[in-house]
């Protein structure tokens, strides 16, 4: 089934992953891959998730995650995997 990519970018702080993952768990979104790094004090995370079990629409989750991001001072984006696949894979 189609996957979704979540990217989290912003100033590093305590509990960013915890906050994001709590939201995902509460909404039945399964994390399949996660990688994270800090570049010059900036937090940079990418997750591959499966949202098929979630009862909320893509638009709702996208807006709510953006709000979670605002609370903790990072930018969270939700994008379907196909845009990256089509650009980087033939």
């Amino acid at each position, binding site marked *: 089934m189609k996957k979704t*990519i979540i*990217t989290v970018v912003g100033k590093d702080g305590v509990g960013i992953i915890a906050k994001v993952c709590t939201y995902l768990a509460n909404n039945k979104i399964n994390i399949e*891959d996660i*990688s994270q*790094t800090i570049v010059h004090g900036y937090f*940079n995370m*990418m997750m*591959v998730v499966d949202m098929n079990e979630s009862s909320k629409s*893509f*638009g709702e989750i*996208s807006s709510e995650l953006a709000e979670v991001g605002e609370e903790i001072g990072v930018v969270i*984006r*939700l*994008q*379907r*995997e*196909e*845009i*990256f*696949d*089509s*650009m*980087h894979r033939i």
Partner: protein
Amino acid sequence: MITRREVIETNEMIQKENLDVRTITMGISLLDCMDAELDTCCKKIRDKIYNKAKNLVKTGKDIEKEFGIPIVNKRISVTPIGLIGSSCCRTPEDFAKIAKTLDDVAKEVGVNFIGGYSALVSKGSTPSDELLMKSIPLALSITDRVCSSVNLGSTKTGINMDAVRLMGDIIKETAELTKEQDSLGCAKLVVFCNAPDDNPFMAGAFHGVTEGDCVVHVGVSGPGVVKTALEKVRGENFEVLCETVKKTAFKVTRVGQLVAKEASARLGVPFGIIDLSLAPTPAIGDSVADILCEIGLEHAGAPGTTAALALLNDQVKKGGVMASSYVGGLSGAFIPVSEDQGMINAVEAGALTLEKLEAMTCVCSVGLDMIAIPGDTKATTISGIIADELAIGMVNAKTTAVRIIPVIGKGVGETVEFGGLLGHAPIMPVNNFSCDAFVNRGGRIPAPIHSFKN
């Protein structure tokens, strides 16, 4: 599995380098809306466009949100109205009424432009084509979102010089009727040689009679992405330069292809073509002229500009063609003046003239575009400029166009502000030596020989 580096690359293109899908354009055939009664015809046009396009804007926004890629414009193109109004329009005012209908339904479904207020007269004009052309100044002065185009010539038919002469007058009249807004009407009026049937870009989009009932075309863009990619290969040779443009064009076009497929599936409308164009906007970093500078010119217009543009245009096509299943429309680099900050800078610096722009149009799409000229330029001079540009298209079997704005009440040295995507432009000087006797001859220029291909 997609890597983090790839995700970051894509998102940087979108966020920092202005990568976007420039337009989703729905082409709608209005051939089945023809009627002998004007009011019935208008009602059929409204109903058909509304039914086909009512979900266009929402679908576009959904796709934007899910893929995280901006889709700047959602637009509609329709069958040339010169055909549709032929059995019910007896006066230019009748045609203008259809223009008003198009404008109203465009606003109703929320698209920002609707194209196809057009006539195809490359060989000759029917009475209804003439009425449509004569109605253009009125139509563009009473509507906001209607775009008009006229195909005046082609490689197969030659150039209809009677219509070229008429359009010189029409452009002046349109400028006059919209002078309160700096002659904005002319920014929505373009004349063509070899106009494509499937162009998604305004102002020249119309739904050709060779097309199906309803189809979705997508125009991609991304001058900023190409510019940024070229920054990393400064000083390298032409092979490296060309490969870089090609790879970048491929990536940009793949996004367009994805969006086109998705839009087509969601709207239940066949996918038509991807238009592989580098279309600039007035935003900083979204400029084709800046790419030319990055290739190695001080300003667009410097010696070497035509060669640089030729290679850019060619590499964009080479990269893009492989990324999409169907390519069409105009497909090339656009060089509008007012919509490209780098071009504006070049004109202001004195590096770029009308004549150099004309030379540049020999090697790229599409033509003399969004060029402001003095308001007192004679209609015959405008016709002469049009004839020159169309001759380039006719002889080279390519699309060329003219979208020129004689700004009433303004002269060289002054600036005109169109706002939004149309941008602003310095008024450029025009060669004012007379071509009256040439333009007033009447008739048409025969089609050129191309090595007896048949």
